[in-house]
């Protein structure tokens, strides 16, 4: 048998039925099955997952690795270490691939440069979804839709472990997922941060589409539990990469919008967690009553408070007091401010095409936007985000501050902020559009 072109690594724990559907979907790929290798890493599974995988007849090479429950990051790293193909797909056990998924990942790695390629796996809903499922679906859908916009500036927070591909050598060089993270969150973002620091790119392949068929798992209770784990992992992530702290939710823990109830809950999370937990559990019952009556607005506010509470609880496990959180965030802001960056000045008079080409050539972290020698705005540096590309320019110019400055600059003196149309026509030639 020839060596495969792609190794798909799927960690799983006690989800035999879902995993079976995932493996079956990989059997009908447009990519030739002899190019495909699938490694299932059973992480402490005791529901017959191993037997199911062994007995499954699929056209691709299917391998089973079994470990005692050590966590999903161990599982992914072990699977990657065993992979024989030069390209790795990190996959979840509840993502049902469309037939073109593997081929799309393969295509996206053609050409020079190394990159981590994200594929979409929006949450599919059937029947009448719960209020929380609607929110979750919109979050996932919007996340992937944003990745596909031409002006999207990729950042570490775009990485999700459920469906991405990466050259096996790059994964090995980076050391894979950091196993310091326990529970939900942290690890995908942290890997994303290291990918960008290593000089590799993030990219998006919309046709590497999978169906995230985990509707039943999307419950409020699980979301709140995960929020707490995510908070703890966010703090740990910020310790590894201090300059990313301002981009994490922990930096906004005390920010509005926060109701009086929310403020109280956040305070309790630090001062009296036992009381807070009791109150939060009572409030879950109230949220269920709101949902039964479809009082969406009240449900939404209450859910915002509860999510904030459990996030604060997770933070409090790592940082004991509000003062400690403030100090942690302030230190992060200093680190972000001191982050080495390359700045260029873009004279917009030279035309959008020329400016965009310069961004593509020089890839700075920050760009000052100049018109006729005067500053009209900037594309700010963003720790944990990719360097600027030409495609980011139109998006930045559409922002209202830059637009306003430009309107002022283009206006004739004394005629107020807006120029007369005649002048506009005369100057139109300045803007070569591609």
């Amino acid at each position: 048998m020839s060596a495969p072109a792609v190794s798909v690594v799927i960690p799983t724990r006690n989800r035999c039925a879902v995993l079976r559907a995932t493996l079956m979907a990989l059997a009908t790929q447009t990519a030739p099955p002899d190019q495909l290798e699938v490694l299932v890493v059973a992480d402490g599974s005791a529901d017959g997952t191993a037997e199911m995988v062994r007995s499954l007849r699929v056209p691709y090479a299917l391998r089973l690795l079994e470990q005692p429950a050590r966590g999903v990051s161990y599982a992914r790293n072990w699977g990657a270490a065993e992979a024989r193909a030069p390209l790795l797909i990190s996959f979840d056990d509840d993502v049902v691939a469309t037939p073109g998924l593997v081929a799309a990942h393969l295509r996206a790695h053609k050409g020079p440069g190394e990159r981590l390629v994200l594929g979409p796996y929006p949450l599919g809903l059937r029947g009448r979804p719960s209020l929380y499922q609607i929110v979750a679906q919109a979050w996932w859908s919007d996340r992937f839709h944003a990745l596909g916009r031409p002006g999207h500036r990729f950042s570490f927070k775009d990485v999700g472990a459920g469906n991405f591909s990466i050259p096996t050598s790059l994964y090995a060089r980076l050391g894979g997922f950091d196993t310091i993270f326990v529970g939900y969150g942290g690890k995908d973002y942290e890997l994303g941060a290291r990918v960008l620091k290593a000089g590799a790119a993030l990219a998006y392949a919309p046709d590497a589409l999978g169906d995230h068929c985990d509707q039943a798992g999307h419950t409020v209770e699980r979301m709140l539990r995960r929020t707490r784990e995510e908070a703890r992992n966010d703090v740990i992530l910020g310790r590894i990469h201090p300059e990313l702290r301002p981009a994490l939710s922990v930096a906004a823990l005390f920010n509005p919008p926060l109701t009086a109830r929310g403020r109280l809950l956040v305070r309790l999370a630090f001062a009296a967690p036992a009381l807070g937990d009791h109150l939060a559990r009572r409030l879950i019952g109230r949220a269920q009553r709101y949902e039964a009556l479809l009082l969406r607005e009240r449900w939404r506010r209450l859910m915002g408070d509860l999510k904030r509470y459990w996030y604060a609880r997770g933070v409090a496990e790592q940082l004991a007091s509000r003062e400690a959180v403030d100090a942690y965030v302030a230190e992060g802001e200093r680190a972000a401010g001191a982050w080495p960056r390359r700045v260029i000045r873009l004279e917009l008079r030279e035309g959008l095409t020329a400016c965009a080409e310069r961004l593509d050539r020089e890839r700075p972290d920050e760009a000052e936007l100049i018109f006729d020698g005067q500053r009209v705005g900037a594309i700010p540096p963003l720790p944990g985000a990719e360097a600027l590309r030409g495609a980011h320019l139109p998006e930045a110019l559409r922002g209202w501050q830059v637009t306003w400055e430009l309107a002022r600059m283009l206006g004739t003196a004394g005629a107020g902020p807006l120029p007369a149309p005649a002048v506009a026509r005369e100057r139109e030639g300045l803007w070569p559009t591609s």
Partner: protein
Amino acid sequence: MPTAVLDLDYGALPDGLSLAEHYGEALALIRVGGRPAGIVQLRLRTGVIDGADLRAQVMAAARWPVCMRWVHTTMGLDEPPPPAADATVAVCTRDRPDDLRRCLESLLAMPDDGQELIVVDNAPSDQRTRDLVAAFPRVRYLREDRPGITAARNRAMREARGAVVAFTDDDAVVDPGWLRAIVRDFDDPLVACVTGLVMPLELETEAQEAFERWMSFGRGVERREFHSSSFDPLLAKAPGSGNSMALRRSAWRAIGPFSTAFGVGTVARSGGEVLWFSQALAHGHRIIYEPAALSWHRHRATEAALISVSYSYGVGYCARALHQLLVWREGAVWGHVARMVLEFGLGLLLRGLIWQRGTLLAPMMRAWLRGFARGPAAYFASRRHLREHGGEL
């Protein structure tokens, strides 16, 4: 005094306007680079306004949006919408061949991206519509014998070949860019429906002016997105109206058809599409109001017609609220109904009786309230009709 309706491009504002003398005011759509940037009420002197005054009034009313759009256009930041290849345009009509002809002509003036054109003739009383459509070979004719615009729209949704179906009404005229603009937003997979900006075609009579002022279809020049995570689905009138909307067919199948208990031509008289908007939002879909999708609607000219439309809206609103309460078990309906009756119904009635005496506002609101009171009876009658004759609830 009648109001002139103008369509002006900011890049080519005329050096003054001289309209018919009887116009005291003008409602002007201001475009920049072809896209709506502002809607401005202009004061005229016996139908005349000079260039400087025109510019000053436009700037005073819509400086910021015009300015913003102007910079974007000048810098080439506007990406023109791609061709609307996989779309169907459907017009539901009933015994109005003259209006329909004007509507079809505007549809055929749009760029041909291979879109399908359908006319659904709803329970016609004669052959005139069929004969008219026969003169337009690109237009497909369908006859739906169950009366009601909702039944006709469901028929169009079933028969359409496009992935997106865009609806306009027979008494409307679309801008050449309407279809491309209304179809563009469907690249977001969560979007089930896009609505457009509907301007009045003419404001010649007091009835038309009153309708435009108090019950306008227009929702401004700001693009808006609606999703139930930040917008109450029960306020579903906000996203737009049925005479300029496009639906994704797959989403329509998932959400369900228009309830044929509602809508023009049924006992409940209106509200079919608004109820569907609510349903789409409650299912987690997104609705987008896209002002670049522009069309012009001829409001009913006579006072009697205005009163009748207002009455219909009252009936339909109440029936819809009852449906949401009884069938969907929406607990927040009570609050919405109380606010609507107090603020809209009684509030505007009071205004009409005190500050706007002699205008059509008071009779219009009285009709709305009468319709509202009639709502429960109409709702149950409509459901009974549905049980006996079949249809989709």
